[in-house]
């Protein structure tokens, strides 16, 4: 009986080692461990043994059962693994076949540039304002110190809605300075992005409608050094740290002193090239300390309060930011262009 058990064990283990599929495995399970299986058959002979032999033989039988069960388990696992492997292999795809497109829409690149500017200034405590485009000449010009006779008031430069040149399309976002001064509490920090209009024919760098962002701060002890510091911050955020800038004297009726800010040419790094017309610098924006007369016209005492303001052209900023070669692309709205951003 002992030999019987040993032989069965050896046979079973060998068979399980070689088993090829789940059906064969099941057959083996029944053959050895089933109710009518070999082990049961052997155990049925236990009755014939003496009382002394029984425990030893019982232990041996249990040991054989355990061994066969373990082998069954192992074989089963192996088969499962093999089956999974075959399945996975069968499911292999060509990963270079294009994915199914999830079509996302795109923010217009000019508004992307505007979003960046807004974020920078909102972070510095500025409020974003919106205002009318059909504007009073009084706010666009007079209240900004551009008197009767200022060339930009000419009908050749500005669009008007009435013969008295009273209502016009704003030629700059600067009237928002006046509107803010009229309605907001001091001190104030605002930016006002929006559309502006000038009588320029459409070409690669001009459009009769374009966008500006106006910025203004009025507070006590505001200095031109603050203006420089803030604008440098803006440029750093827009064009990366280490972007070099310079400030040049300029003239705007509503600021004094006035300046224009240049950034070093990104193409040549300042050596001079066609992009910067050989100057090494590219004009970015106009700015200055708010003219005391402008403050006075809005009832703000320039002896107590001072302020600065700037205006930046959005199209040009976006064009530089994304290296867009032609302004017309911005208003053409070809999806092949829009979907690049």
């Amino acid at each position, binding site marked *: 009986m002992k030999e019987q058990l040993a032989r069965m064990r050896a046979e079973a283990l060998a068979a399980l080692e070689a088993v090829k599929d789940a059906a064969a495995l099941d057959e083996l399970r029944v053959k050895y461990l089933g109710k009518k299986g070999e082990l049961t058959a052997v155990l049925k002979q236990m009755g014939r043994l003496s009382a002394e032999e029984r425990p030893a033989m019982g232990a041996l039988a249990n040991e054989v059962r355990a061994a066969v069960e373990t082998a069954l388990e192992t074989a089963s696992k192996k088969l499962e693994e093999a089956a999974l492997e075959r399945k996975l292999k069968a499911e292999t795809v060509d990963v270079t076949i294009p994915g199914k497109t999830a079509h996302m829409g795109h923010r217009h690149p000019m508004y992307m540039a505007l979003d960046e500017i807004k974020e920078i200034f909102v972070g510095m405590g500025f409020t974003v304002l919106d205002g009318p485009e059909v504007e009073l000449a009084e706010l666009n010009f007079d209240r900004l110190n551009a008197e009767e006779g200022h060339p930009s008031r000419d009908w050749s430069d500005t669009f008007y809605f009435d013969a008295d040149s009273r209502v016009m399309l704003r030629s700059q976002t600067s009237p928002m300075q006046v509107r803010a001064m009229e309605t907001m509490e001091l001190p104030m920090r605002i930016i006002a992005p929006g559309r502006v209009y000038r009588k320029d024919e459409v070409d690669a760098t001009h459009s009769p409608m374009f966008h500006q962002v106006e910025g203004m701060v009025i507070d006590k002890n505001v200095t*031109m050094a603050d203006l420089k510091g803030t604008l440098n911050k803006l440029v750093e955020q827009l064009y990366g740290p280490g972007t070099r800038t310079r400030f040049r004297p*300029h003239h705007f009726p509503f600021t004094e*002193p006035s300046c224009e800010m240049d950034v070093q040419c990104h193409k040549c790094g300042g050596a001079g090239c066609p992009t910067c017309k050989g100057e090494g610098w590219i004009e970015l924006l106009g700015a200055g300390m708010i003219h005391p007369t402008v403050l006075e016209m809005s009832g703000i005492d320039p002896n107590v309060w001072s302020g600065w303001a700037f205006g930046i052209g959005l199209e040009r900023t976006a064009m530089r930011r994304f290296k867009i070669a032609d302004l017309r692309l911005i208003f053409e709205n070809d999806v092949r262009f829009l979907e690049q951003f």
Partner: protein
Amino acid sequence: MNLSREWLNEFVPVTASDKEFAEAMTLSGSKVETTTDLGAEISNVVVGRILSMERHPDSDHMWVCQVDVGADQPVQIVTGAWNIHVGDLVPVAKDNSWLPGGVHITRGNLRGVKSKGMLCSLKELGLDERDFPYGVITAAALLNDYHPIDPDKPSVPADVRPGHKIYGPVLAAAVEAVESAGEGRWSCTLTYPEKTAAVVTPCQNLHEGDMVAYNTKTGAICTLADLHAEQREFPHCIPDGIFVLQEDCAPGDDIREVTGLNDQVVEFEITPNRPDCLSVIGLAREAAATFNAPLTLHDPVVKGGAEGVLAELLDVETPAADLVPRYTARMVRNVKIAPSPKWMRRRLRAMGVRPINNIVDITNYVMLEYGQPMHAFDYRYVTGGKIIVRRAAEGEELTTLDGNVRKLTANHLVIADENRAVGLAGIMGGMNSEIVADTADVVFESACFDGTCIRKGALSLGMRTEASAKFEKGLDPLNTLPAVNRACELVELLGAGEVVDGVIDILNYVPQPTVLELEPEKINALLGTDVPEADMAAILRKLDFQVEGRAVTVPSWRGDVKRMADLAEEVARFYGYNNIPTTLMRGQTTVGGYSAEERLERRLGRTAQAMGFDEIITYSFISPTYYDKIRWSPDDPRRQSFKILNPLGEDTSIMRTTTLPSMLEILTRNYNYRNKSVRLYEVGRIYLPGGPDGLAVEDKYLTLGAYGEDMDFFTIKGAVEALLKELRCQGVRFTPVRDDPPYHPGRCAAVWAGEKRLGVVGQLHPLVGKNYGVDVPLYAAELALPALLEAQGPDPEYVPLPKFPGVARDIAVVCDEAVTVGALEDCIARGAKGLLKEVSLFDIYRGPGIPEGKKSVAFNLTLRADDRSLTGEEADEDVKSILAALGQELGAVLR
């Protein structure tokens, strides 16, 4: 404003390189646009003297010249030009030389004859006849160059001989000898049978052996024009050729020096507040301050002494005193009109002004030097010796120097004599008093006119001139006297005439210098600097401000300096904008942020993008015809638009009252670019009449537009629904719209949130597509942002997730075609007894099994109780009630 650096150096020595000069001037406030080196493109071109000329052995039109170029040996040069003669001084581009346009000249071989360079024309030097008026070439018609148009019918016989009659008094004659008669004229000896004639002619293409057409009656050698000949009949007798120099120069001299091309011209952008910088002296003052160099100005000295007493010769009245702050005039007699000298011409040329004659050139020269526009007019046409500066009469006419007849109004200021206007003050002189070749007595006017009057006058006549551009900025009245004296000084220097003693000078204003207090603390506080008071004073003095203690007297030409901030700018400019420190703002913190409108826009934009819509930006102004394209009726009140009175063109002439046509334009453009499946959105304004102060009501709209394979009515509607869901709008519903002209009458819906109409969504009417030339269905939605802002739902609040399972039931009902799904859904909701949680449409079927005119509509119902598991019986109870309602209210029966 152009500036010749050569001229600048007369007043201030600046040796900086062009680049350094440009940068330093730019940073001190005079922005340099470009610098042009006039002779940069020319090298190795010298003056040469023609030593001899031989006809080319192998050509009927070329000459072989030996030319002295100042070297040991003459060089041989072959030329096709016929206007040169032995002894002429000409520009020679030597072997390995460069000319404008990158033209490289090297030695060569012309029909077997060696040529070591090229003789140059004015054009080849980058010049023209305006630069050198004497460079004009007149060509005689040489009969030996005659090529008949029709060989069978020649106008001149091929065997023409001297003495042959050409026509009338014109005979063929041989040129025996040619000799210079000076001033670009030539003495020719002509022979024809048994006769000899001596002729002086301006024609430069004559040489011994030529045959010409000689008019025996007038004694002139005929040109092509005289013979009414075409150029192709005399292909080599052209008004072009070598530039024969009439300059004081010698062989070997650098042509750049001789022609004044050894100068750099700097173009400045001068801001309108600085008219004083529209002059060489003004810029010299800025340059002196910028480079810390001495400024040497010159007081004009006039000898005078011409016959006559000015007061008797000339009387000036200024009835329009309010428009003429100052009128200054002097007189010059016995004027000899001639070209001005080379130094003056080259300076004018460098500054972009065309030389004309000595008197006109002097006025232009003084205008450039002093920034004071001058006018010279012929005294003999000033009737009564009286100049009256008055407003024009309504309808008065004047022919200006450019030959145009100008119809004037009382808003124009004229210079007149007793009878008529002789000039348009501050804008342009009159043709009737123009300086001409035989002008003898000249009045120089140097006046100051009201800027606004001149600007408006020039604008209304559409003739903005150099003078008016200066006057309109407001000139310094104190400048008129030195300027007129300078003009008279130049007259004497050029020997152009004799100056009458005395000046007529009418002052209609009281000069009042501006005196400001120097407030160093305030200036430093404004700039954020720490500039010492003494440095501020030094800067101001460099600019000719007088500083005594803290009193600053502003120079008369600096009308722009009125208060402390203006002084601060002067200090900052020369302290250096880039030396001002950079600091970040201190002071009270402000909160900042976005408005509710702006947050709404961002939310809508993000959602639209997530659904595949690309953002576009379109013009706010459109053409009125756009309303026709979207089929608005001619009397549609929405056509009431803000109309631009001076638009660039019809296409951009009115402010849109709808964003739809802008969207359709862009859809069309993309369609024409063959872009498939396009989805676009824009957040843009419309402009409606009726705002405060006569302004517009500028409401924003979200406009969606789309076409393509994956687009239909329900897809665009789905996008609208998703947007409204994102905004958590309550009570969203869609009602059919059958009469919105741009839209398909059966595929258009009004969008509502409760009782608030938000906008419209639909497929565009096929006729609209036709108007745009698009033959695929177009879809759009227009939603008003103010309405969306109001319809936005409250912030979300947590609703417990269902604890108990629901029961699903599908029902299909058959009803009339006219019954809408919306009506069925509403009815289902009403019919349920409180367990219905969700209704969703899953099928609409028409066809076999369903009667004609009916449809089967199938819904999936979800029923659920919040406090227990629902039994099938309970659910069926509700469904029964729903079906009963459907049957009673809509005649819809279970299929």
